[in-house]
């Protein structure tokens, strides 16, 4: 028998075989991920909507010379929705992160009732967002529990119309988001925290580092990767904030809590300009993708450092 040698040609053969074997899966992925994107791009270049009476594949007859994109650039309502979404994100995500980190630090140590509190803490995350929305809608009614509590604390009857005031409505919506998603942050960060090598923390202690110094010099750098993952997940999710918010305020009063998702939803269901919606969605997808790629790069670098 002749000894089999792995010649380069043979390796190419292997790669070809591998390609053929994975082809069905690749086609499937193509359909799931790439096709809808292309379809969206196609529609975004037209005035097509279901009411046009044409199948989407015939949308080319409604070609509008990039009007959707030029409209988008000039759409003040779009830009203010984008700004609002950014404000919500800039407040909610750091708040969720800091609360989650504080809770994770607390729960990294053993204490009485830890398991019970742990379970309770995770509950908001499991509530269906629509239910959470209804819950907060009730809580923030002018005769609702939030005002009752404020009345009891202050001694004066408080009848704030939370969801009717533009600023307060936005605050209420953010409180609901922080309530619901801090547990996820907590869970991810706790996993990262318990993964920090105990020995290195002890070594730092023996070298005279106090608990704050240990946290800054050892714990946080070791958690870098997981922190980036947690932030990336929440930034992307929060950017798409919709269900809870929509049930609480419907984007109102007026457009005071109208985020990108709410705006898109209204355009889709009320204005029925699907070509325009496709253009907005694509623009946002591009923005989020750039953010995600940036986060992934940071993560890869952090992992390299920690390996």
């Amino acid at each position, binding site marked *: 028998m002749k000894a089999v040698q792995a010649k380069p040609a043979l390796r190419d053969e292997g790669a070809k075989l591998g390609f053929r074997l994975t082809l069905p899966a690749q086609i499937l992925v193509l359909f799931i991920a790439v096709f809808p994107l292309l379809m969206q791009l196609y529609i975004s270049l037209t005035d097509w909507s279901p009411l046009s009476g044409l199948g989407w594949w015939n949308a080319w007859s409604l070609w509008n010379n990039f009007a959707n994109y030029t409209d988008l650039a000039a759409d003040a309502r779009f830009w203010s929705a984008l700004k609002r979404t950014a404000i919500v994100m800039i407040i909610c995500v750091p708040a969720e992160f800091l609360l989650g980190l504080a809770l994770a630090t607390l729960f990294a140590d053993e204490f009485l009732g830890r398991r019970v509190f742990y379970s309770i803490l995770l509950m908001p995350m499991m509530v269906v967002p629509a239910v959470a929305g209804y819950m907060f809608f009730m809580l923030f009614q002018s005769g609702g529990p939030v005002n009752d509590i404020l009345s009891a604390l202050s001694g004066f009857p408080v009848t704030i119309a939370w969801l009717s005031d533009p600023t307060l409505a936005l605050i209420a919506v953010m409180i609901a988001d922080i309530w619901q998603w801090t547990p996820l942050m907590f869970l991810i960060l706790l996993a990262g925290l318990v993964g920090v090598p105990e020995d290195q923390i002890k070594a730092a*202690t023996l070298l*005279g580092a106090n608990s704050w110094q240990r946290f800054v010099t050892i714990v946080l750098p070791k958690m870098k990767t997981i922190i980036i993952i947690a932030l990336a997940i929440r930034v992307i999710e929060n950017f798409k904030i919709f269900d809870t918010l929509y049930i609480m305020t419907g984007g109102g009063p007026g457009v005071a809590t109208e985020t990108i998702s709410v705006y898109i939803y209204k355009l889709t269901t009320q204005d029925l300009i699907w070509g325009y919606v496709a253009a907005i969605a694509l623009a946002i997808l591009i923005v989020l993708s750039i953010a995600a790629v940036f986060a992934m790069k940071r993560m890869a670098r952090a992992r390299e450092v920690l390996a």
Partner: protein
Amino acid sequence: MSAIHLQNLVKKFGDFTALKTMDLAIADGEFMALLGPSGCGKSTTMNMIAGMEEPTSGKILFGERDMTGVPMGRRGVGFVFQNYAIFTHMSVRQNLAYGPKMRGAPKAEIDRRVGAIAEMLQLTPLLDRKADRLSVNILQRVAIGRSAIMEPAIFLLDEPLSNVDAAFRAVMRTELKQLQRQFRQTMVYVTHDQLEAMTMADRITVMDHGVLQQVGTPLEVYNDPANVFVARFIGAPGMNLLRGRPAESDRGLVVDLGPLGVTPPLPVEITAAVRGVRGEVLYGFRPEQVTLAESGRGLSMPVNFVERIGARTIIHLGDGEAAVKAVLDNDVALSVGQTAVIAPAAQSVRVFDAATGLAMKAG
């Protein structure tokens, strides 16, 4: 630098007693090995010296200072972890500078101290390397340097060589011993490997089941084990122990081993302690200190197994309670099934009380 005194140290974890009343004095500048099998309490002892655990009762003194209850960051203890616990997200320089920096030393001073310690440990060319890609002996030096820069009163080492492959261990042992000479620091070294303890330590503390068994120089614990545990634990293979009763013969005091016959006369140094004992004793001798003898001049036993390890050959004789090993020349012409007559060298013979396990010594 500082001496260490452990006074009546006890550690309990719930119902489990990890350490039973330990008294130990470690001299200033001494290299002391804490040696014992897993679960003997050696790591617990070290953790209490470091302040990672507090004793249930008893005291820990560094020199004259009572350190019991002092938090671990303030004991001035250098600690080298089993896996070195190097801060892998930092450079070698940042690792070395960590202690002084956390204590708020001025930058110029930190640089000077890091420079000096790096020079001493030959780490200067590696200072700006990331600490996650270093070989084990460099890791060891960084770990020692990181502690040494704090000028600790004492150095504790927790089995630092246990993750190193056997061939490299010899290199690391030599290096560690040289470093200790350089620093002249009191060092406490925890290990379950007697070779490490024997080769590096000034004195060895042998422990088992939370009880201190013997403290002595490597040769003392090898030559004069205080009890049966130390006799069996120290040496590779450990000491041979045969059950019997003291008996008088025309050649002097011997031990009657029953079916194995009687031993050669006991050395005069221990006859006084053994004479008159009525109970059972254990007749002990080192496998290395055995010669082959003519019939009638030693113990006659069947050869059960021949283990040739290169430099020497280990002969396994007898079985069950009456099994012994003899380490002989590598070309010894014995094979399984033959009967060998072995004579322990008289000066190596030790006798232990079978009931208490303690060595029987004059005085």
